[in-house]
C-alpha cells in the first residue's frame, strides 16, 4: 500500500518535469535566430514556400496561442509531424526505437553483471592483484574514448578476423543470433565506459558494507565467507548501486547516439542527427521530448526497484 502511494507520489512529481521539458522543447523553435519558418525552409526557398511552412507549423499565431496548441496536441499524444518526410514523429520514433532500445539494453545487460561482479570481486580481494587488475581495467574503460576503441575493435574483429559485422543492424525478427551478432560490438563499446564506472562504484559500496557491524555479526554466527558476501553484503551493496543504474541506463541511451553514427545503425540517434542536419525542427522537438519521457520512465522504474531492495524505504 505504502509502495503504491510512493509510486503515485513519484508519478505526481514527474508531471512538472515533463511540463518543463515540453515548454523548453517548444521554445527551441523560437530560439532560432531570425524567422523560424525561413530558417526551416532554407536559403533557396521563395516567399510563398516560407509562408506555407509558417501556416503549416502554426507560426502565424501568437506565441501563447502556439504554446497552448503544442501542449494540447501533446496531451492528445500528438508529438508533431516531420516536415521532410511527412511522417508523424511518433511513427518515425517507432521505426527507429527498436534499434536504439536493442543497443541500449544489450549494453545494459553487459554493464550491470560485469560491473557489479568486478566491483564486488575487487572489494573482496582488496589490495591484491585482483583489485589492481579490476581498477586498471576500470580506469581504461572510463578514460579511453569509446569511438577510438570502437574503431580499433572494428579493425580487429571485423576487418582482420571477420568475426563480426563492421556496421549495420539486423532486426530481432530475423533471428536472435544475427541480431546479437550485429549488436555485440557496438554494445560492448557503449558498455565499456559504464562498466568502469559501475565497477568503481560497486567496489566502494562493497568496501563500505564489509566494514559494517552486521557483517561481523554474520561471521560471528558461523556464516562462511562467501555466503557473508553473497547474502549479507550484496543486498546492502545493491542499495547505492541501484540508484546509479538509472543514471547508467540514461547515459547508455545518450551514448548510443554516438555509437549509432560509428556503426551506421538506423536508430533514434541517427534520426535526431539527420533531423538537425535537414532542419526538421518538429522532428527534433518531438524526439527530444519523447526521450525526456523515457528518462523520466527509467527513473520511475529505478525507484520501484530501489523500494524493493531497501526495506527501510518500503515501510516508512
Amino acid at each position, binding site marked *: 500500500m505504502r509502495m503504491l502511494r510512493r509510486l503515485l507520489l513519484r508519478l505526481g512529481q514527474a508531471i512538472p518535469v515533463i511540463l518543463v521539458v515540453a515548454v523548453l522543447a517548444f521554445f527551441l523553435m523560437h530560439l532560432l535566430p531570425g524567422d523560424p519558418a525561413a530558417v526551416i525552409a532554407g536559403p533557396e526557398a521563395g516567399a510563398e514556400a516560407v509562408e506555407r511552412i509558417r501556416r503549416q507549423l502554426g507560426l502565424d499565431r501568437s506565441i501563447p496561442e502556439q504554446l497552448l496548441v503544442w501542449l494540447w496536441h501533446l496531451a492528445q499524444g500528438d508529438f508533431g509531424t516531420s516536415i521532410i518526410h511527412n511522417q508523424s514523429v511518433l511513427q518515425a520514433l517507432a521505426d527507429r526505437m527498436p534499434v536504439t532500445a536493442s543497443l541500449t539494453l544489450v549494453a545494459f545487460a553487459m554493464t550491470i553483471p560485469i560491473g557489479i561482479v568486478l566491483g564486488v570481486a575487487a572489494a573482496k580481494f582488496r589490495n591484491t592483484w585482483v583489485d589492481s587488475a579490476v581498477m586498471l581495467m576500470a580506469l581504461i574503460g572510463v578514460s579511453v574514448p569509446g569511438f577510438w576503441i570502437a574503431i580499433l575493435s572494428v579493425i580487429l574483429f571485423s576487418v582482420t578476423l571477420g568475426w563480426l559485422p563492421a556496421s549495420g543492424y539486423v532486426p530481432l525478427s530475423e533471428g536472435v543470433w544475427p541480431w546479437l551478432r550485429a549488436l555485440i560490438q557496438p554494445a560492448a563499446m557503449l558498455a565499456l565506459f559504464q562498466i568502469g564506472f559501475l565497477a568503481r562504484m560497486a567496489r566502494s559500496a562493497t568496501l563500505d558494507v564489509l566494514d559494517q557491524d552486521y557483517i561481523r555479526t554474520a561471521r*560471528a*554466527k558461523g556464516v562462511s565467507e562467501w555466503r557473508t558476501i553473497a547474502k549479507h553484503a550484496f543486498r546492502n551493496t545493491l542499495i547505492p548501486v541501484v540508484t546509479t543504474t538509472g543514471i547508467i541506463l540514461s547515459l547508455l541511451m545518450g551514448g548510443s547516439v554516438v555509437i549509432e553514427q560509428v556503426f551506421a545503425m538506423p536508430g533514434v540517434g541517427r534520426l535526431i542527427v539527420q533531423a538537425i542536419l535537414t532542419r526538421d525542427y518538429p522532428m527534433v522537438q518531438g524526439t527530444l521530448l519523447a526521450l525526456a519521457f523515457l528518462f523520466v520512465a527509467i527513473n520511475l522504474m529505478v525507484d520501484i526497484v530501489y523500494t524493493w531492495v531497501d526495506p527501510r524505504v518500503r*515501510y516508512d
Partner: protein
Amino acid sequence: MTTPLLAVRDLTVQFRTDAGWLTAVENVGFELGAQETLGIVGESGSGKSVTALSLLGLHAASTTRLPTGSIDYAGQNLLKLPERAMRRIRGGEIAMIFQDPMSSLNPVLTVADQISETVMLHQGLDRAAARKRAVGLLDMVRIADAAHRVDAYPHQLSGGMRQRVMIAIAIACRPKLLIADEPTTALDVTIQAQILDLLRELQAELGMSVILISHDLGVIAEFARRVMVMYAGRVVEAAPSRALFRQPMHPYTSGLLAAIPPLDHDVTRLSTIAGSIPDPARRIPGCRFSPRCAEVEAACRETAPDLVTVGAGHLARCPPRLHRMAAP
C-alpha cells in the same frame, strides 16, 4: 577445579598499522568454568574487544599477525583450528553479542531470516522449522507478540528490542559460552537493567558460561563472580568480584571503583582517573599505568611488574601495593 571450559594463555594480538605492528593485547590469560561468569572491565581501548574477538577468530587475517598463545576450548586450541572447524564453533558453541544493536543487525533481512540462518546452519533445520524456532526464541528473550514481530525488519524495532533479537540469535543454538561485548552501553539505563536481567535468566536457564565485557565496574560487579581488569592491552588485576571490591590490589582498579556512581546518595562530581589510556603505538617503559598513577614509585617507571598472586584466586600487577599490604 576440573578442566575449565575455556583456558586462555598468553594471548597476544598484533595489528598492522601505518606506524608498524601495534600490540593491542599482550599475554592475556584467564580460565572460565562451565556455567561461570567472567567480567572483563577496562577503559575504552584497553583491549577487551580484541580479546573477545580472538576467541572467535574474528580478526581480519590481512591486518592481524597470527595471535600467539593458546585458547583451549573443549580440548582443542582454537588458535590452531582450521577455518571450517572454527565456523562450527562460531554461533554454535561460542556466540557473541555486540555493543551497538542499531548496526549489528542486517538492515535488509527480517528478524526471522537472521535468527533462522543460525539454526539452519548449525542444526540443519529446514526453513519452516527454523522459523518456528525463531518465534520461540523471540518468546524466550521476552519480545511480546513474537509471531508477528518475527517478520519485522530491524529498523522497525527499538534499540532494546534489537539487542533482544541479537541475544536470540546468539542463544539460538544453545551455545556453551556467550560473549557479551558491552551489550548495554548503547541503551538507556532502564533498558540496560532489563537486558542484564534477561542475560542472567537465560544463563541460568541454558546453563551457559558468560563473558561480560563492560567499562562499568558497577555493571560487572552485579553480574560476574569473577572480574578481570585490563589496562593498555594487559591484565592488571583479576579476582573474585567480592575480593576485588573489598581489597583492590591495583591503583587502576581503585580508580575504576571510585568512578562507580553510588546508589544511595546523590553526588555532584564523580571521581575519574586523571589522564587517558596511552596510545598503543607508544612504548611505555615499566608499568603502563605509571604515567597516570597517584601511587607511582621510581621503580614503577623502570621495570614492568609481573602479574602475581596476592590472595586466593587474586592476581595483581602492582608490587608497591602488595608491599604496603604485607607490611602494615
